[in-house]
């Protein structure tokens, strides 16, 4: 096994090394070329994955995106803990309350404990619209790790500890919606659905893509032709109308969890084509490689060749393409829910939250209702940058 691995690496290298000998910092020299290189010794003995990590680390934007994504996913997993309020707790007295700013300097001078000002309410006599202004006499200090609404952490441990909260008054960091529900808490809860739908959807399309693409690339022939035509066909249908039609066909009486699964399946029914294409082209090019022939001559079984030799050598590419296809899923869910065809309240997702911001009047009155959209953009951008970084790192031997 050891021998085969070494052989594979050398094989890949020698080809690339010939191509761009001079610029290639990370190339492992083939025998005979060793003398020409006087670089860092560790580069030569580093494994493929180590090289990838180094290369990825050089991509600063991708690294920053990875950090942002980790934060977003942590918030999504522990949303009950980070959210100060229950997302369905409403208080009509504070409908459309604007975001409160966090202050450190108040009437008692500077204090390390941040606080927010209370609201002063007025009603516009003409439009009957409520106008909120900060009430500088009322200060609500913000406490960390406070007791609040009880919940079960990860669905297992009952607790009532919250990351932030107030002992008296209220804190609406990102304002409230038309029923006076805290947007900050709602967005945190929404991130759980919106970000996980991307992961699950991609996982499903990944399974479909690797199976179908792998078969069609490895065996070729009639099956390949049919799959190619099918992929072309699916890609030629406008996605949003098709998604709309399919999700409109989900029975309205389904429980939320089933609708969630249904939407995920609908999204991945179209999403698998890209992955299948990548897998297929990789299979096609690897099939002819020497190390595959060698393995075949050694009498390895088909399955062993595929999973022990071929899959590891393009796994990094697959990971990169998977990362790049998550944003499409998240955007798809958001768009569908926004149109009212995807997830429906009481389920909370970013798309459902954006439904509140569907007409100009509510946006004009409460622009902070667009905040879930901002999070969608941040998440999607981060995934795109991360995917770009991974794609560059996936081929560590190239320049």
């Amino acid at each position, binding site marked *: 096994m050891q021998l085969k691995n070494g052989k594979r690496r050398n094989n890949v290298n020698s080809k690339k090394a010939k191509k761009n000998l001079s610029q290639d910092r990370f190339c492992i020299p083939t025998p005979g070329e060793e003398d020409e290189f006087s670089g860092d010794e560790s580069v030569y003995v580093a494994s493929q994955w180590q090289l990838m990590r180094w290369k990825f680390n050089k991509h600063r934007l991708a690294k920053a995106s990875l950090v942002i994504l980790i934060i977003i996913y942590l918030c999504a997993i522990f949303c009950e803990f980070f959210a100060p309020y229950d997302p369905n707790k409403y208080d009509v007295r504070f409908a459309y309350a604007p975001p409160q700013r966090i202050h450190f300097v108040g009437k008692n001078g500077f204090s390390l404990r941040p606080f927010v000002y209370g609201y002063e309410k007025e009603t516009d006599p003409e439009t009957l619209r409520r106008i909120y202004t900060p009430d500088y006499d009322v200060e609500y200090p913000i406490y960390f790790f406070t007791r609040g609404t009880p919940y079960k952490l990860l669905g297992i441990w009952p607790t009532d500890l919250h990351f932030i909260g107030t002992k008296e008054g209220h804190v609406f960091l990102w304002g409230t919606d038309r029923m006076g529900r805290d947007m900050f808490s709602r967005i945190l809860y929404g991130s759980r659905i919106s970000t996980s739908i991307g992961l699950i959807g991609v996982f499903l399309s990944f399974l479909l893509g690797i199976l179908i693409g792998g078969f069609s690339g490895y065996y070729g022939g009639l099956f390949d032709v049919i799959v190619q035509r099918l992929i*072309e066909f699916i890609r*030629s249908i406008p996605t949003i109308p098709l998604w709309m039609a399919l999700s409109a066909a989900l029975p309205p009486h389904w429980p939320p969890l089933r609708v969630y699964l249904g939407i995920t399946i609908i999204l991945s029914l179209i999403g698998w084509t890209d992955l299948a294409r990548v897998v297929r082209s990789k299979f096609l090019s690897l099939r002819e490689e020497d190390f595959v022939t060698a393995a075949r001559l050694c009498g390895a079984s088909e399955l062993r060749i595929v999973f022990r030799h071929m899959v590891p050598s393009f796994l990094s590419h697959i990971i990169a393409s998977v990362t790049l296809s998550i944003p499409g899923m998240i955007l798809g869910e958001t768009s569908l829910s*926004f149109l009212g065809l995807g997830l429906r309240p009481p389920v909370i997702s970013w798309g459902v939250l954006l439904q509140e911001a*569907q007409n*100009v009047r509510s946006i004009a009155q409460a*622009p902070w209702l667009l905040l879930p959209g901002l999070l969608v953009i941040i998440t999607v951008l981060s995934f795109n940058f991360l995917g770009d970084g991974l794609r560059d790192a996936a081929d560590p031997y190239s320049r």
Partner: protein
Amino acid sequence: MKRVLYAIPTLILISIVSFVIIQLPPGDFLTSYVAQLSQAGEMVDEATIAALNKRYGLDQPVYIQYFKWVWGMLHGDFGQSFEWNRPVGSLIWERLAFTVVISLATMVFTWIVAFPIGVYSATHQYSAGDYIVSFIGFIGIAIPQFMLALILMWIAYAYFGQSVGGLFSPAYVDAAWSWAKLVDMLKHLWIPVVIVGMSGTAGLIRTFRANLLDELNKPYVTTARAKGVPERRLLYKYPVRVAMIPFISTVGWSLPALISGETITSVVLSLPTTGPLLLRALQSQDMYLAGSFIMVLSVLTVIGTLVSDILLAWVDPRIRYE
């Protein structure tokens, strides 16, 4: 020629998918239609039901219904919209025209914007301008179209005090076609065009820039430069031409994206195109209308892709002689 033949099975598949969509909602649509009528307090006449039953062959097996539907469509009969109580055909054509107009305008917009920006950012690689363009491009890809529409609407409403929805000023909505109406439409058209075109433009700039950079590093460019060909001429005569290929080749797969984007943008801006009507049809389970929309939109896309493939073969000899 082969491409044209390939399109035929695609069209058949599309018709099957559309038909499945029509059939998807539980129960056949006639029962829901009857229920709807009786709810509205109207007397349902047995003869009408029997006539409808016969017309769509509802008492027959599914595949016969399918053939009946396709046959009717080939003769211009798309079925009946139950919500509007009008033939589907009369409902979709006008809206479809607007969809096509917006899609085409968007494509032209994409080209016009992407070309100079792409040339600029490839020739000024790693300059501040290049970074700004790339950054805007990334945002353009990441931002959902309906978000962009909402934000534009909000800005227009909050800062300019005007409503940007619709394709016509109120005065012209019901007016007959005239020069003034056309001008009025053009005034409203740019907003959806910008919104729908944003992500496509961003993508096209990225591909164009990468292609042009590849070309610029090739030896023939260096040779030409060494021989003293003026930089401007050098740029436009060869590398730009080769790098232009994606402008045509992406038409094919950007069409579905355009139609998708147009659908959702129209819903937000409430334009008189297919989008809002499709949404309504789906919500009220008016399936003949919805199915026909999907069918016609997909067929248009396939035709567009076909045209772009033929164009590509015509423009790029490397493909023609392969």
